[in-house]
C-alpha cells in the first residue's frame, strides 16, 4: 500500500476530497462576505447567523408549508436575502458615513439577537432536515464511500461561485458595482441609483450565506448555533484571500478547506486553529492577503 506521510494513499485522497467539500462551504460563505466588504466596507458579523437563517428557512418551509429542498434552494436565499436588504436599508445605511468599525459592531449585535431568538424558539439541540431523495445514498469510489449529496455540494457550490465571479467581473452590472465601490459620487452623477445598488448587494451577499445554509441543512444539525463557530473561520478565509477580492475568497475558501482537512488527519486537535496560523503567516508576508492589492 502506498503511504503518504504515514497515511495510506487511499485515505489521503479521501481526506483531500472531504476537505475540498468543506472548502466549498467556506468559498460560498467568504464570497458573500467579500462582496459585502467590497461595496459596503463592512465586516458582516451577522454572516454566520444569516447562514443559520438559511438552514432554518429550509427546515420551516419543509415542515410548515411542505415546500421541498429544491424549491427551498431558491426560496430560502430569497427570503433571507430580503431580510438582509431590509437590514441594510433601515440600519446599515444610517451608519455608512462613520467609521466602518460600527458596521461590524452593529452586525455583531444583530447576530446576537437572531441567534438568541432562535434559541428561545427552537431550543439548542437542533433539528433534522432529510437529504432529498434524489441525492440519498452514495457511491464507492474505491478509496472511500462518497455520499451523492456531498458530491452535489461541491458541484453546485463551484458553479455558483464561478457564476458570481463572472457576474461581478465580466458583466455590465458587475462593472457598475465595482465602479460604485471606487467612486460612488461619480456613479450617482451618471444616473445610477447607488443606494439601491448597495442594498441589493448586501441582500445578495446575505442570500449567498443563506444558500450555503440550505446546502448544509441535510448534513448538519439545523441548530441556532450552527453559524457562530463557522463565522470567525470564514473571516480568516476572507482576510487570507485579500479583503474584497472575489477570486481570492473562492480560491482561499477551497484551499483552506483542504488545509483544515489534512490537519484533521495529522493533528486533529488543531483543526480549528490552523487557519489562524495560516492567516498570521500570510499577513506577515503579504499584508493585503494573497489576492488583495496593496493599498
Amino acid at each position: 500500500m502506498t503511504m503518504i506521510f504515514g497515511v495510506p494513499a487511499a485515505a489521503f485522497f479521501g481526506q483531500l476530497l472531504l476537505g475540498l467539500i468543506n472548502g466549498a462551504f467556506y468559498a460560498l460563505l467568504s464570497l458573500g462576505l467579500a462582496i459585502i466588504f467590497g461595496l459596503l466596507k463592512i465586516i458582516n458579523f451577522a454572516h454566520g447567523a444569516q447562514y443559520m437563517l438559511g438552514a432554518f428557512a429550509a427546515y420551516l418551509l419543509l415542515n410548515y408549508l411542505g415546500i421541498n429542498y429544491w424549491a427551498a434552494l431558491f426560496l430560502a436565499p430569497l427570503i433571507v436575502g430580503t431580510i438582509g436588504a431590509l437590514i441594510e436599508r433601515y440600519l446599515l445605511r444610517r451608519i455608512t458615513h462613520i467609521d466602518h468599525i460600527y458596521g461590524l459592531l452593529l452586525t455583531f449585535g444583530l447576530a446576537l439577537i437572531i441567534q438568541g431568538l432562535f434559541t428561545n424558539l427552537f431550543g439548542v439541540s437542533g433539528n433534522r432536515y432529510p437529504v432529498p431523495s434524489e441525492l440519498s445514498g452514495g457511491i464507492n469510489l474505491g478509496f472511500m464511500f462518497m455520499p451523492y449529496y456531498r458530491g452535489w455540494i461541491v458541484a453546485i457550490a463551484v458553479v455558483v461561485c464561478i457564476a458570481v465571479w463572472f457576474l461581478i467581473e465580466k458583466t455590465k452590472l458587475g462593472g457598475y458595482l465595482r465602479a460604485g465601490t471606487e467612486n460612488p459620487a461619480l456613479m450617482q452623477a451618471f444616473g445610477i441609483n447607488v443606494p439601491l445598488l448597495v442594498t441589493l448587494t448586501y441582500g445578495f451577499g446575505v442570500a449567498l450565506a443563506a444558500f450555503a445554509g440550505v446546502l448544509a441543512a441535510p448534513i448538519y444539525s439545523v441548530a441556532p448555533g450552527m453559524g457562530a463557530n463557522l463565522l470567525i473561520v470564514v473571516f480568516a478565509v476572507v482576510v487570507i484571500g485579500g479583503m474584497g477580492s472575489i477570486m481570492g475568497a473562492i480560491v482561499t475558501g477551497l484551499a483552506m478547506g483542504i488545509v483544515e482537512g489534512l490537519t484533521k488527519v495529522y493533528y486533529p486537535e488543531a483543526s480549528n486553529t490552523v487557519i489562524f496560523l495560516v492567516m498570521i503567516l500570510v499577513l506577515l508576508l503579504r499584508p493585503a492577503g494573497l489576492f488583495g492589492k496593496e493599498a
Partner: protein
Amino acid sequence: MAMTETKSSRNTAAQEQKKAANRRRTIVYLVLLAIALIAPFLAYPVFLMKILCFALFASAFNLVLGYTGLLSFGHAAFLATGGYFTGYLLSNHAITPEIGIITGTIAAIILGTFFGLLSIRRQGIYFAMITLALAQLVFFFYLQADFTGGEDGMQGVPRGYLFGFIDLENNLAMYYFVLAIFLLGFLLIQRTIHSPFGQVLKAIRENEPRATSLGYNVDAYKLVAFVISAGLAGLAGSTKTVVFQLASLNDAHWHMSGEVILMTLVGGVGTLVGPIVGATFVLTLTHQLAQSAVGDWVNVILGVVFVACVMAFRAGIVGEIQKFAKKNFK
C-alpha cells in the same frame, strides 16, 4: 493693540474655562472615589470586585481603541494569561498574592510585546484580524496545556495573605485591595493619556501620516501603548483570578474580546470614565437579567443594547453626557 488685547483676554477666558473643566473633573473623580469607598457596605462586594476588574480591563482596552485608534480583537488573551499565571503560581507555590499578580501582569506584558511586534504595522480590519488570530493560538495553547485544567478551569486558587499578613479571605480586605489595584491602573492610564506621549498618540489617531511626517516613530508609540494596555488587561485578569479563586477558558475565548468591546462602546470610546461606566452597566444588566424571569432572553437583550448603541448613542453613555453638557452648559 486692540487685537492682541482681545486675543490675550480670550486666552485667559479659555484658561479659565479649562481650569473650571479641570475642577469639575476633579469633583467627579472625588465623588466616584467616595462611592467606591463606601460601596461594599451598600452592595455585594464580590460583584463590585468583578466590576472593578472588568472596568480595569475595559479601560486598558480603551487605551488602544479610544486613544490610539486600534481595534484589538485579541485582548482576551491578555486577561487569560494574567489569570492563568497568577492562578498557577498561587496554587502551586507558597507566594503572596501580590507577587502572583505582578508575575501574571509581567506575563501579559511579554505576550503583549509579542502580539504588538507582529501586528502593530497593520491597520483597521487587518489589525483586528491579526490580533484575533494570535488570540486564537493562545486559546489553543491554554486548551492543550495541562496546568489550565481544560474546560473545568483552574479551581480553588487560594486568596492567601496580602504582603504575608492581610487575610484576603475577608471580602472587605479583598475589596480594598482590588480597588487599590484598579486606582493604580486607572491613574497610569490617566497619566499616559495626559502626558506628551498621550498627545502624540492622539495625533496618530487623528492623522497618522501627519504624525509620521512630523518625525514621530508612529509604530514605536503604538507599540508602547499596546504593551501598556496588554499589561493592564493582564493585571485585571490576575486580580480577577484572586477574587474568584479560579481561572477559566471563558477568559481566553474570543467572546471575551467581543464583550470588552461592548463594554467600552456602551460606556463611551475615548473617554476616561466611559469604560468604567460601560463595564458597570453591562455587568449589572447581565447580572440582573440572569436572575430575572426573562433570564433566557439575555443574549437578545444584549444584542438590542449593542444595536441601540451603534444606531443612537454612538458616543456611549459618558460620551453622550459630555456632548449634552457641552451643548447646554457652555
